[in-house]
């Protein structure tokens, strides 16, 4: 349980050493490594079937602030803490390379956000999860509004507005509804709602939950994600490809599996809408992504669409697709963080943000664009990247459940994502730079950034071959 305290301690200590950048960044790296080590040591026990619990104190009568480890949370915590190490390396290069201001605040909020993420991953009941969910929103707000100009303020507005209002208006209400109906908020295998909520009310409650978790970016509550792209790229990378958005879909999966229970939802026609909303989000977001010229915005819409994949996989309600959903949390994290790293390194080295400006950049930045290509392939779902595996499981689940509609949606979206990723790779490698003379010869980005993105790109491939651990954990989720 030291896992939660490490980033918190980091957040307290960082301002004290803020005067010496080297110490500050070493401390960040130290925290990140310690955290990952801590989470990793917890893994074998969970794999063996243990569910360690840690109750802090009673919040309301009968309702504790409690943590409980389980496989899905393990996957999420492992991914988030591992990528924090790499992002820290990357952030050092990025923040120095772009001479960003107020770097201490940046690192402090980052550590706080990670603490909140771990809190979400290990939460033992809905209330604990909700507390850390709000903490995550608030601790990332200063990161989104980091630049403090009009654009950042507007982005921060949307970010906070959507996330805070959906969580207060829908999620809190749904939690209270659950509490008043069942007098428990624990995550239990098989769900807690069976027998307490009936008929169409199940569909309504599900809507409150799913839309209440604005972080899952299901349409129409996805606007905050593109808005958050005004943040410095390391933020977009770790928080808006991994921690924040994954916290959203993670919550959705947990609510479906441990609060409703798969069986309850399977027998209830009023809950079917989730599948269609997720499918619509996948397709619409992909089409919007096609039209984005700003690289980070294109990635953001791609994230919206990929998140809906996980929701879709959950909504299929087949064991195999749930395994796929859990795997996709890890797969998308590695792939998307690589893409964001690449976008940030292009911005740092060449000060370019648009796809249309990238002609021939592959020759100047071969490592960056190589990694970008690998990340894209993982997004599309081509072997030998891990994106293929998760998609495979989702498809199998859909087939086993007889959801032909879902299968069609997955195929269509695969084509669409190929359509918005491949052109980027094409212009980068196969088109000549448009103007030769005025390009002052930039090369690769600073080495920490390149190192980070090569590592994550390698990760997407490695996970494909070393699938054992995440797969075992994912299977633990469905009790297979």
């Amino acid at each position, binding site marked *: 349980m030291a896992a939660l305290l490490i980033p918190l301690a980091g957040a307290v200590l960082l301002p004290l050493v803020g005067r010496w950048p080297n110490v500050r960044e070493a401390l960040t790296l130290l925290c990140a490594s310690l955290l990952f080590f801590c989470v990793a040591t917890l893994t074998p026990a969970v794999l063996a079937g243990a569910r360690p619990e840690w109750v802090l*104190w*009673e*919040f*309301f*009568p009968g309702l504790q602030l409690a943590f409980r480890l389980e496989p899905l949370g393990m996957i999420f915590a492992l991914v988030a803490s591992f990528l924090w190490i790499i992002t820290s390396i990357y952030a050092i290069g990025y923040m120095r390379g772009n001479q960003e201001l107020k770097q201490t605040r940046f690192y402090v909020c980052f550590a706080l956000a990670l603490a909140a993420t771990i809190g979400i991953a290990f939460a033992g009941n809905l*209330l604990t999860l*909700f*507390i850390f969910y*709000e*903490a995550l929103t*608030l601790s990332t707000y*200063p990161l989104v*509004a980091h630049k*403090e100009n009009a654009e*950042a*303020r507007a982005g*921060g*507005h949307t970010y*906070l*507005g959507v996330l*805070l*209002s959906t969580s*207060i*208006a829908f999620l*809190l*209400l749904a939690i*209270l*509804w659950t*509490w*008043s109906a069942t007098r428990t908020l624990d995550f239990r295998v098989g769900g807690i709602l069976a027998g307490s909520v009936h008929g169409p009310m199940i569909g309504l409650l599900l809507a409150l939950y799913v839309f209440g978790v604005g972080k899952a970016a299901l349409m129409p509550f996805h606007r905050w994600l593109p808005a958050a792209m005004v943040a410095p790229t390391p933020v977009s990378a770790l928080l808006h490809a991994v921690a924040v958005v994954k916290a959203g879909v993670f919550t959705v999966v947990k609510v479906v599996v441990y609060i409703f229970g798969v069986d309850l939802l399977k027998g209830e026609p009023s809950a079917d809408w989730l599948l269609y909303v997720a499918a619509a989000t996948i397709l619409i977001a992909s089409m919007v992504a096609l039209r984005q010229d700003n690289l980070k915005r294109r990635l953001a819409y791609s994230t919206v669409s990929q998140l809906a994949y996980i929701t879709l996989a959950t909504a299929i309600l087949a064991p195999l697709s749930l395994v796929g959903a859990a795997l996709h949390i890890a797969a998308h994290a590695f792939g998307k963080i690589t893409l964001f790293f690449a976008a940030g390194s292009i911005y740092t080295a060449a000060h370019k943000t648009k796809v249309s400006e990238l002609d021939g950049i592959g020759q100047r930045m071969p490592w960056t664009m190589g990694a970008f290509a690998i990340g894209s392939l993982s997004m599309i779902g081509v072997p030998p990247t891990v994106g293929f595996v998760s998609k495979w499981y989702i498809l199998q689940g859909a087939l086993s459940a007889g959801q032909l509609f879902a299968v069609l949606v997955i195929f269509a979206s695969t084509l669409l994502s190929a359509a918005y990723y491949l052109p980027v790779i094409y212009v980068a490698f196969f088109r000549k730079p448009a103007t030769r003379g005025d390009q002052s010869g930039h090369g690769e980005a600073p080495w920490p950034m390149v190192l980070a993105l090569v590592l994550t790109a390698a990760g997407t491939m490695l996970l494909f071959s070393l699938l054992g651990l995440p797969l075992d954990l994912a299977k633990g989720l469905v009790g297979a």
Partner: protein
Amino acid sequence: MMLLTAHLPILQVILPLIAAPLCVLLRGPRLAWGLSVLASWGCFAIAIALLRQVLAEGSVSYALGGWAAPWGIEYRVDVVNAFVLLIVSGISSVVLSGARAGIEAEVAKDRIELLYTCWLLCLAGFLGIAVTGDTFNVFVFLEISAISSYALIALSGRRRALIASFRYLIMGTVGATFIVIGVGLLYMVTGTLNMADIGARLPAVAESRTVAAAFAFLTVGIGLKMALFPLHLWLPNAYTYAPAPVTAFFAGTATKVAVYLLLRFTFTIFGADYAFATVAMEWILLPLAVLGIFSASLVAIFQLDVKRLLAWSSIAQIGYMVLGISLVSVTGLTASTLHLFNHALIKSALFMTMACVFYRIGSTQLADFAGLGRRMPWTMAAFVVGGLSLIGIPLTVGFVSKWYLILALLERGWWPLSVFVVLSSLLAVMYVWRVVEMAYLQPATSNAKPCEAPASILIPTWALVLANLYFGIDSSLTVGIAQRAAESLLGVSS
């Protein structure tokens, strides 16, 4: 020692009442401040002792001057008013401890002792209203507190404070008159002024029109005092133009005591059966609460002065308390009583940050907050935490209140209203965040230097802020007391 504990109820009022004139006699603002701080903390200690006594042994009855209850004045303390005494004396003590610098900056030098005198008189009035078990005694203390609070507001020295104070005087006097008329009518039909006694005799004459008239006069009169929408018009100006520490004191006490009065008259004297079954008061209170929450929050969003913004927010928060009362259930009353305590902590903390800001900047205009996040980091951090508590983010007291209020609504099956409550807290997000954005994301206009408020104001402010967090994290104490208070009001035993 035995002797002293037996006289706690009267000591609660006598202590500030004696200390008040001493403040005038002590020449020198510092001495007067020191004495009033001591007196206030003394009251707080007495309130704690009383609460412990009540929690352990049940309600305490004290016959003033040894005259037995129906004839003499009885002071009667149960869980409900012991809790209110604790809130009022606690807020007064903490705020007063941090008030010296702010008051010396805002009030004319030769009147500072007078301010402390008024403060203590006002405190004695509030505590008296809460402690007494005699309806006419309520009116007496009401007037003591009201008249001294008009003076407190007017002492600010700004010209507009005079108008605000005068307006408050008119409205407050109307309210007090209504209350005394109501008490008179009750005396007419029951022949007694003792609360418990009236409560026992009323059911026999409940059908009479006189009782209904008394009920109406009392409800409107108390409504004026607690700024229940639409009787709230005196509040924004009074809060805005009073000296900042005084506002912090009022925000945590004045309206809270009035809410207590409403609880006492409705449940102990008239009884829930009469008030809600015969008169159907929930259909008066409920719409007013809802309208009040919504319109006051909306108005708060458009304020240009942060103090005024918080004042409007206070009116909305009164709506939440009334909403809980109008549910007439144990959970509903628990939510209201909890919010009484929690909102006192929230608003006093927020108005204390206003005292910090006014002390340094000399203004609380929103535009002047630009860049304050850098210039006054501790003050603005306190504001942010207080603001989050006002919105109702988990781990703050605001969340605990909201949790119980929505739970109470769901218990009654009032779906649309629970949706309304969560939506209205989004309005709170909007008005709090306007200030936060201005302070942190807007660069300062000139090359302004850091100007953190002095520790003498900051420490009490942060004490309140930390209390916000503490009682938000471990709510067992407050929830337990509030629940017992609710049960005793409704006459249900757990």
